[in-house]
């Protein structure tokens, strides 16, 4: 899922401090799971902002709503009728949702309440880590199911580099060396001989480098 982190409240205050009618919109999917932008986080942000404005002596209306998700039009429609009464929207969805909401309600200033970080997994509650970079050409079959593009700090396809130390990456003792993981996994799968196959130069044109991407499925288009 997409992992995000709450923006510091000082940053959010700075964005909306001159508005008087604020709608905070949360999302029930990824940002709920990583506890950054779901219904509970919306409530906490709303309460905090209400107190901030009251303390400033400013009469501000702050309302809350959490949509199923903000990356599909039908859910964004749910606020069509009520959005008119606000002068600003804070979206706690990931960057995808913030943009789609802003696009749908282009007359309203929309501010992001979270920083969108990466596509990753829940290692345990409170710990999320990156797993996928969306390169567009998945090579997981040849690396025992561990991605060197997202988990190697140098995205080496023929690693490890000389900085791998005791299974950890040279940039941090807390970061596993992806290639150590791959080698261990290949051993476990009894496929260590595949290590010596040279992975070819990657076609990055399906990655961000090739430009903003789009998937079109003519067979399902209406």
């Amino acid at each position, binding site marked *: 899922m997409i992992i995000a982190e709450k923006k510091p409240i000082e940053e959010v205050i700075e964005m909306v401090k001159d508005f008087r009618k604020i709608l905070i919109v949360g999302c029930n999917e990824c940002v709920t799971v990583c506890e950054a932008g779901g219904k509970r986080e919306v409530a906490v942000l709303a309460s905090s902002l209400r107190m901030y404005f009251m303390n400033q002596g400013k009469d501000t209306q702050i309302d809350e709503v959490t949509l199923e998700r903000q990356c599909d039009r039908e859910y964004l429609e749910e606020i069509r009728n009520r959005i008119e009464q606000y002068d600003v929207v804070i979206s706690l969805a990931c960057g995808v949702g913030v943009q789609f909401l802003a696009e749908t309600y282009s007359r309203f200033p929309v501010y992001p309440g979270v920083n969108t970080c990466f596509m990753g997994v829940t290692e345990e509650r409170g710990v999320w880590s990156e797993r996928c970079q969306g390169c567009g050409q998945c090579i997981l079959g040849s690396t025992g199911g561990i991605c060197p593009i997202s988990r190697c700090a140098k995205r080496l396809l*023929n690693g490890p580099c000389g900085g791998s130390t005791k299974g950890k990456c040279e940039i941090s003792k807390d970061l596993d060396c992806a290639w150590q993981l791959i080698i261990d996994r290949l051993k476990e799968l009894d496929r260590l001989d595949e*290590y010596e196959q040279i992975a070819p130069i990657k076609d990055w044109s399906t990655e961000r480098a090739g430009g903003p991407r789009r998937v079109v499925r003519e067979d399902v288009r209406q």
Partner: protein
Amino acid sequence: MSVKTPSRLEKILDSGQLAVTSECGPPRGSDPEAITKKAKMIRNYVDAINITDNQTSVTRLCSLAACIHLKLMGIEPTLQMVVRDRNRIALQSDILGAASFDIHNILCLSGDHQKFGDCPQGQNVFDIDSMQLIQTVRHMRDEGKFLGGDDIQRPPQMFVGAAANPFADPFEIRVPRLAKKVAAGAEFIQTQCIYNLDKFELWMKQARDRGLHEKIYILAGVTPFKSVGMAKYMKNRVPGMDVPDDVVKRMAGVPKEKQPEEGIAICVETIQRLKECEGVRGFHIMAIEWEEKVPEIVERSGLYPRPRD
């Protein structure tokens, strides 16, 4: 093996003689004197001089320009190229730039992560990795073609090298990794500096068991300790470095003023011992900020004079 390039380093290795290389770090400024001075000190004691490429991600005068300065002095340079900062277009372009000055040696490296340097907030590239860079240079040289498929006018004639670290983790794939570099087309190796001779000789034995010593020239890396402090630092703070306790003890056992001498003695003994190690075809002396000692090390190791052209 017969020579494929005009590289002097290749010629010496091919002749069966032990080769000696060293390295210089470029300055953090544009004064070429910083390079030319160091190079003048060691030119008669080495067969080729490596110029590092923004090592440890610290921005310096680029390796290519420094190599050109060396070439203009009549010294044989080895262009070190990391894949951290340049995409495949720039890499191929710089290779051609080097070739236009008849620079004939290249060392293909990954590069330390930018986090360690002076621009930790910068992007990194890693469009291709060091293994693929080896393949690329060979392709440009032997096929005479760009990666994109077009012909290269006056293809580069480069002797292609790579680094190897017998002391990095995991040890079990260090020789398979060497094999991979050989398969990718690397023609010479410069190893990380050696203090743990037993481990290095074990790595060499495993390499010989696979016949790799006959497919690639291995140059053993050595670095003299200036002090026990340096030994401890390298033992504890440098990833992929193996400094055995008894080496540190030996440095500590001598009074401070005598430590540099002891460090050089250890270095010379290492070279003497490794001369007997089958498959070691030369030495890469990395005397960081101590280039003035290279002549002494070469002489005391019985490697002077160097073969004349």
